[in-house]
């Protein structure tokens, strides 16, 4: 009887592993890959010719004063970088007094390829500059890099348009 019992136990033990296997993190997907092949681009001013090609979402198509554009809740851009080391992400924008009056202080969270780079709270209106080094492992040369700024709260106009901040320029610098 004992050998049969042992065989049954061995069978069950072989089938039911105790510890699940462990795996390293996989290749990180780039959301920007979805945008299709593009020429290298690491920096973008809102009034650059053809800038619209690098907008992913929540950036107004209307260029104001030939300089700036309104953002929505989560302005998102795409870039294609030639390298990934020694880069800082920067963004110049302006917190609009008219919006601030309606919403109170705004918090902007900056994302690189869906990873949170930093979060800043802005309680006063006027021009702002955000700049922070980016971990090279977050970036893939030759692939699209998606950059987003999540703005909370935003002002929603009576006709349903969401206004976040005034965008001037954004991109990667050394």
């Amino acid at each position, binding site marked *: 009887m004992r050998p049969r019992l042992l065989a049954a136990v061995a069978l069950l033990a072989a089938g*039911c592993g105790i510890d699940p296997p*462990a*795996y*390293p993190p*996989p290749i990180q997907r780039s959301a920007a890959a979805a945008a299709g092949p593009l020429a290298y681009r690491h920096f973008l001013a809102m009034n650059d010719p053809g800038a619209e090609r690098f907008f*992913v979402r929540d950036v107004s198509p209307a260029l104001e004063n030939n300089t700036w554009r309104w953002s929505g809740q989560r302005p998102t851009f795409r870039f294609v970088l030639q390298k990934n080391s020694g880069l800082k992400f920067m963004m110049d924008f302006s917190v609009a007094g008219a919006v601030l009056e309606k919403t109170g202080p705004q918090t902007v969270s900056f994302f690189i390829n869906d*990873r*949170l780079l930093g979060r800043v709270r802005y309680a006063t209106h006027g021009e702002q500059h955000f700049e922070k080094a980016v971990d090279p492992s977050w970036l893939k040369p030759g692939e699209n890099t998606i950059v987003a700024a999540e703005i909370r709260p935003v002002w929603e106009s009576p006709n349903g348009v969401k206004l976040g901040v005034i965008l001037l320029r954004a991109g990667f610098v050394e």
Partner: protein
Amino acid sequence: MPQAVSILFGAAFTVAVCLALGRILLARLKLALYREEELPLAFLAGAPVLSLLVFLLAAARLVYDGVFLAMGAAVLGWAWRQRLHRLAGERLPPLPRSWRLLSVPLFVLFGLLYFCHAMAPEMSPDGSTYHLGLVGRYYRAHGFERITTHMYANLSQGVEMLYLFAYAFGRHSSAALVHFAFLAALASAMVGYGKRFGFGAAGFAGASFFFFSPVVGMDGTTAYNDVAVAAVIFSVFYMLAIWDQSRNPAWLVPAGLLAGFCYASKYTAFLAVPYAMVFAAWKLHRARRPWLRAVAVLAACAFLMMAPWLVRNWLWFDNPFSPFFNRLFPNPYIHVSFEQHYAEHMRNYEGLASRWEIPLEVTVRGAALCGLIGPLFLLAPLALGALRRPHGRRLLAATLIFGSTYAANIGTRFLIPALPFFSLALALAIVRLRTLTAALVLAHAVLSWPDVLRSYSHQYAWRLEKVLWREALRIKSEDEFLRSNFPGYAVARLIEEAVPAGEKVLTFTQIPEAYTSREILVVYQGAFNENLGDVLWTPLIPEAQPTRRLEFHFPPAELRRLRVVQKASGFVEHWSIAEFRVLNAGAELARSPGWRLRAHPNPWDVQRAFDASPATRWRSWQSLAEGMFVEVDFGEPVPVDSVQLDCAADQWRIRLELEGADAEGRWRTLAAAPSETHLEAPPNLRRLAALEIKYAGVRYLLIHENEFGKDDYVRRPQEWGLTLAGEIGGKRLYRIE
């Protein structure tokens, strides 16, 4: 060689080699048979031997026409030298002339109908999809391939090994003709059984009841395997009866081989093994004789036939019984949830309002349960009359045993394994009323003939339509016939033309893969495919998109491991995580190659929660159960203060807790519950999903006209990044750019 000739050669050669092997086996064991038994039982005894030989050749990647031809010729030559081509057994008492006059013309008529249908181009649903689809793949690969994306490839395929032998010479129709040979052998064996045990007329009537049955004729003339399985089960029963009569222990060898071949042919026929062992043990025990040796012989012979499939599955799919018992043998190839859904689906056919409809559905209508056994079987209660005779009781017991698996799949054809026993029992019960029995045989034949069948069965009943002699002889071309009668064929040919060799096609619906050499991935037929289907549906189903952000905050700490544990249980929904992020001071920790990720259950997909893609997710692929977890081991203590999970909304009742372990491995609860915020659906989700499919090595997508989300692909191909590669009958083939 004209196609009809190659078809006939393939089938005849296979049947002849089976016969020769059976004759050799029985002769080596010095087992004598009556003249009427020699052909059917030799064929059935030889089938497992040839199946095993083909299995070994396929495992050795030696599936070549020349190898098959040489092996078959050697077997035939050996049998010839032994003079085994001559039938030498004594004759059993003949049937009364009146019975012969009634039955022989009917058998000839139905035999021709069936032969033509078997030889006509194969277009049965399962035969043209997986039975021959896999046979074709093995043939092209010159042997077995480790196919982990096709649950039907994990089933035992003993009969398909014979189809492979025939397919080498005559392709699809040769395989179907081999199945028909099993049908003919079974009917013949039923007659022989009746004659041997003294109820020849009942044997003839029972064989008629079985042979004329519409679902038997339909199934047994296609590349299914149900009738073959029924034949093998019956041969086990028959040989055990001969052993019981003669007590010649040598009969236990072919009986054991055939019992094992039952499992090797269809899992649900595994009951033949315990049946044979219990039968032998019981008979010997009653005779006060030792039984262990007999049972051991049966078990050893059965195991010889079962072992190749058990070992293959264990080595390739981590589960000897794949695609079942996945909870007991967890593996990355078949999800537990699939097995549950599949079993549920098999027990509940669409179109059947109540179980009370089954008797009428399986005897008269034939649509909802796919086929009918014929109105004759509404007289089933009469079979109880057979209880008066020992053989009647034995036949009814076998009916119950081999019919007991019907509850697992209530399709009509799953009655076939028990039907020979029941047919004989019914005939035995009424055979004394000769006129009534003859009238029932005649009525059953008339009611089963296609033209009559059409008048009372459901318009969509699975049945034979007419005598396809032009198609069988290929006077009408196979391609022309299939294009006009079998819509799936044109789709398979479109794929063959539009998809380059070596490419894979993902589809939500089965297609007749036996008519294309391209690899077809059906989303429900494997864990890999199911993950791709999940990705493809994510952009179309808002609840599947990662719009729930669950955040655990806790006092900053240096931790080696973090684990999110799921506490709810008893709900059918699955737990899933699209992205698992670890943060410190508001910034995400970069995922280091030194991290180690674990999950329970479904550990094999854990990377999908750490791949920075909102289109993929780790899923439990099981109902919620307490103790499920996803864990990250940093390899060393790191400062952390929060964990962020992006999750789909389709998991309303998950209950999560965060645990952490320090450098010493001491676990503690860090946060009893997460806070939750709503996220907008990620942009470009369609394109991201399509790219995930492409990254997985699949570049083509087949969408049928009635499938979920079809309009979205039609309207937004650019957002998906799809190019139309072909279209036929509302089915669209897309290439992923």
